[in-house]
């Protein structure tokens, strides 16, 4: 088969263009443009299906000449699974979203953002270059900000969006630091090239900081404890968004990153223990939290966090079984979780609530949806013969045979799975049983349940025939993560062994736990009170403290007065300049080379000094302006003395004009504000005199060095020969640098137009003086 992966960047470009066409505000909302939106992910899906079984390939789309990184992409088992999930589930989500948002405002914009997000996500999982990866990574954060805050008139939505982008954006920036160090250690920014340099990287002194920085990025994105709280908050987004971002795609980016770096950074005690600890805490803590929620989406959010914890945990174990387990579990989780989310959205759409303590007996009117719920809960619970069962078997297999305390690890996973099973029943079973609570609700439209059903049924089919995904999907993933050939095959039935007994135990405990749960306000209150000291509160406290500090700081630094700004800028620049000057200058003056002072120059400079003094300290505006004019004339005379007739003429004309303009305009203004001698004058005076002294020192220092006159000599030699002019200054201005002078004239003309229009502009009534 021809390797057409190289077409991928153009695919991305196409997605971006179409997304923009959707997201740009149009006069006709809900026009036909959005109807084609599911076609785009479908095309992408077909494209990646065609890549199944193709050996991994890598290409560089664009190489920056002077920078060490390039725009390159890599396709292997791991990328392919994610690309398929993103585009495949994306297709279903787009169908679903089009139906779900049918009568809502700004549907097109939502679809546009979703598409942009999809493109960014594809970029993340297919990028080979660290910087490329980072760019797409941040792009997913940004697009998800718009998606979470889509209901932008709702304050809670905006807050959640801000919270999500703060956490993930911050994590991303920290990760960038790790990427850059990693790239510098490895001498390459290509992830594939790094795989071969594993030992070199791990033995480097900077390895541990790099690892921690990169883990920060992955943990924030994949909502690991203690950064997990943004994900339940992000449930403010419209449900199709939650189903897409928060089950199958964005939150898995962190897991993807860990899996991707596993052959480079893994097999190191810090990696293993950090991932096991963080993943372990997250999976059990979030599963526990899920049981007390009443909002369907909230339950799903916490179970998602828990599932992500399991994946991180497995990547931390890093044994062959664990890698096999995570390879499969990514797929399993995406299938049932997206189905669950769509189910929750449809229930909300038809009944107006997602509170499981309010919903009862929906199975009587929403038969198909009930079916989806059962199948998803089935796979979620790991009950045979679903694919979830195969996945959970592998998890137990890996914990049981791990060298690090198998009892603890297995206990943790069993407890987590028990709670997840019960939580799945809360969403997929409970609302559909019992006496009907919403008799007015009706059967949802086809597009509102079919996409979920497809995913749920797939979970079952893959379970019955694991061979479907074994060779083409799961084994290549295993290869990507562990960088070795897999020695396992997915099987539904392993015979009677400890793993099977554990599975049975999990099911028994899970169903038992479910019968004890009575969702309602009481349990919700209990769990929310326990959050007071949780990471979310701490984060909020930090954010508020930061806001308070920056407000104070801003009020101090930016008091709105020009003088303060100027003073700060000048002191800073003066300080830096002064430092350089004082450490670099020689303070030698070559007295012999100086020109002598005659009486004429002496008098001129004396007049100039007096004029400066008068300009500064005269209480009369007219006197100040006149003194300013005198300064100009003195300069004019200095130009005459020292061979610059053109300058003298220009200075004379301009100076006269300025003074006249000043006098004409300003006689209407009030007197100067009375000079009161204050501390401010002293500070300003010190700053001004220091900078003045600095300028004097600089000019003397420059005089000491030999000037280069190459360019001047060129002009002088060619002024007559090339330009037929004898006044070299003139020739430079109007001939050699004629275009510059042209632009200067333009600038002057603009100023003239400005002056004229300001003078002629008629005042509004309230602007009149009298």
């Amino acid at each position, binding site marked *: 088969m021809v390797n057409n992966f190289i077409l991928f960047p153009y695919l991305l470009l196409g997605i971006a263009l179409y997304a923009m066409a959707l997201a740009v505000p149009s006069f006709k909302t809900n026009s036909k443009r959005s109807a084609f939106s599911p076609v785009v992910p479908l095309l992408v899906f077909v494209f990646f299906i065609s890549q199944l079984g193709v050996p991994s390939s890598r290409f560089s789309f664009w190489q920056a000449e002077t920078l060490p990184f390039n725009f390159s992409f890599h396709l292997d088992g791991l990328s392919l699974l994610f690309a398929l999930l993103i585009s495949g589930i994306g297709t279903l989500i787009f169908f679903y979203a089009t139906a779900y948002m049918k009568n809502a405002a700004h549907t097109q914009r939502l679809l546009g953002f979703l598409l942009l997000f999809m493109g960014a996500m594809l970029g993340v999982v297919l990028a080979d270059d660290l910087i490329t990866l980072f760019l797409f990574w941040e792009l997913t954060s940004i697009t998800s900000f718009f998606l979470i805050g889509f209901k932008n008139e709702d304050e809670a939505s905006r807050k959640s969006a801000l919270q999500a982008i703060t956490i993930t954006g911050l994590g991303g920036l920290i990760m960038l630091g790790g990427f850059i160090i990693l790239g510098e250690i490895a001498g390459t920014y290509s992830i594939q090239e790094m795989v071969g340099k594993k030992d070199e990287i791990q033995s480097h002194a900077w390895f541990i900081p790099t690892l921690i920085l990169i883990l920060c990025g992955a943990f924030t994105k994949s909502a690991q404890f203690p950064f997990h709280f943004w994900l339940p908050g992000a449930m403010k987004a419209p449900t199709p968004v939650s189903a897409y971002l928060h089950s199958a795609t964005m939150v898995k980016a962190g897991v993807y990153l860990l899996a991707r770096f596993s052959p480079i950074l893994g097999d190191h005690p810090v990696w293993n223990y950090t991932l096991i600890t963080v993943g372990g805490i997250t999976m059990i803590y979030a599963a526990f939290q899920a049981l007390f929620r009443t909002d369907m989406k909230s339950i799903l959010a916490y179970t998602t966090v828990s599932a992500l914890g399991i994946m991180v945990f497995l990547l931390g174990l890093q044994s062959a079984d664990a890698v096999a387990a995570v390879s499969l579990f990514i797929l399993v989780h995406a299938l049932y979780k997206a189905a669950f989310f769509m189910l929750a959205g449809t229930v909300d759409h038809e009944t107006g609530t997602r509170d499981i303590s309010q919903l009862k007996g929906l199975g009587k009117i929403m038969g198909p949806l009930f079916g989806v719920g059962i199948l998803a809960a089935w796979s979620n619970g790991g009950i045979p013969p679903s694919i979830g069962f195969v996945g959970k078997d592998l998890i137990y297999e890996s914990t049981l045979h791990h060298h690090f305390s198998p009892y603890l690890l297995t206990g943790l996973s069993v407890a987590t799975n028990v709670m997840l099973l019960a939580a799945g029943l809360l969403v997929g079973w409970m609302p559909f049983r019992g006496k009907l609570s919403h008799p007015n609700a009706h059967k949802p439209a086809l597009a509102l349940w079919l996409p979920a059903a497809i995913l749920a049924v797939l979970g079952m089919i893959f379970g019955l025939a694991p061979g479907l995904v074994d060779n083409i999907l799961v084994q290549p993933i295993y290869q990507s993560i562990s960088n070795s050939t897999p020695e396992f095959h997915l099987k539904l039935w392993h015979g009677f062994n400890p793993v099977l007994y554990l599975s049975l135990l999990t099911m028994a405990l899970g169903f038992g736990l479910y019968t004890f749960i009575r969702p309602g306000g009481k349990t919700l209150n209990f769990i929310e009170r326990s959050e007071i000291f949780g990471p979310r509160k701490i984060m909020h406290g930090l954010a508020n403290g930061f806001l308070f500090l920056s407000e104070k700081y801003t009020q101090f630094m930016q008091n709105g007065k*020009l003088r303060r700004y100027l003073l700060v800028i000048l002191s800073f620049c003066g300080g830096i300049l002064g430092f350089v000057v004082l450490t670099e200058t020689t303070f030698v003056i070559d007295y012999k080379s100086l020109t002598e002072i005659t009486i004429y120059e002496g008098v001129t400079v004396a007049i100039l000094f007096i004029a400066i003094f008068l300009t*500064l300290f005269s209480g009369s505006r007219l006197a100040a302006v006149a003194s300013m004019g005198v300064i100009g004339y003195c300069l004019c005379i200095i130009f005459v003395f020292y061979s610059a007739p053109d300058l003298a003429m220009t200075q004379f004309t301009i100076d006269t*004009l300025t003074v006249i303009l000043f006098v004409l305009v300003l006689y209407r203004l009030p007197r100067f504000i009375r000079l009161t001698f204050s501390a401010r004058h002293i500070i300003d005076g010190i700053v*001004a005199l220091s900078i*003045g002294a600095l300028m004097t020192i600089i000019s003397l220092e420059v005089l000491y060095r030999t000037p280069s006159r190459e360019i001047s000599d060129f002009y*002088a030699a060619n002024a007559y020969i090339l330009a037929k002019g004898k006044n070299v200054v003139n020739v430079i201005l109007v001939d050699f640098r004629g275009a510059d002078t042209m632009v200067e004239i333009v600038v002057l003309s603009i100023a003239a137009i400005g002056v004229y229009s300001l003078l002629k502009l008629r*005042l509004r009534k309230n602007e009149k003086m009298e």
Partner: protein
Amino acid sequence: MEILLAVTIGLLYAAGIFLILRRSLVRLIIGLVLLGNGANLLIFLLGRISKGQPPIIPEESKVFLDAYADPIPQALILTAIVISFGLQAYAIILVKRAYRVVKTDDIDNMITTDEV
């Protein structure tokens, strides 16, 4: 003479900076003018000063036969003078206009866009 000019440059800079730190808009503009003058003189001095050698090719020849003053700083300063005039003229008119509208030339009273 160079030392004297260097001191003049320093004084012009100091005076200019002191004036732009004042509250009066008029002083601010005068300060800008002085800063401009200081900068021009600085450039002029850096091109080295020499007496009686303007950069004009003698009547009867095609190239310079003798030493001549550096024409480049002069060309630069000429441009600078003209441009700064454009700036000053506009600023002066703007001050006048602003004064008619807000009835003050005190910068400290101009820190808000709201009508007082």
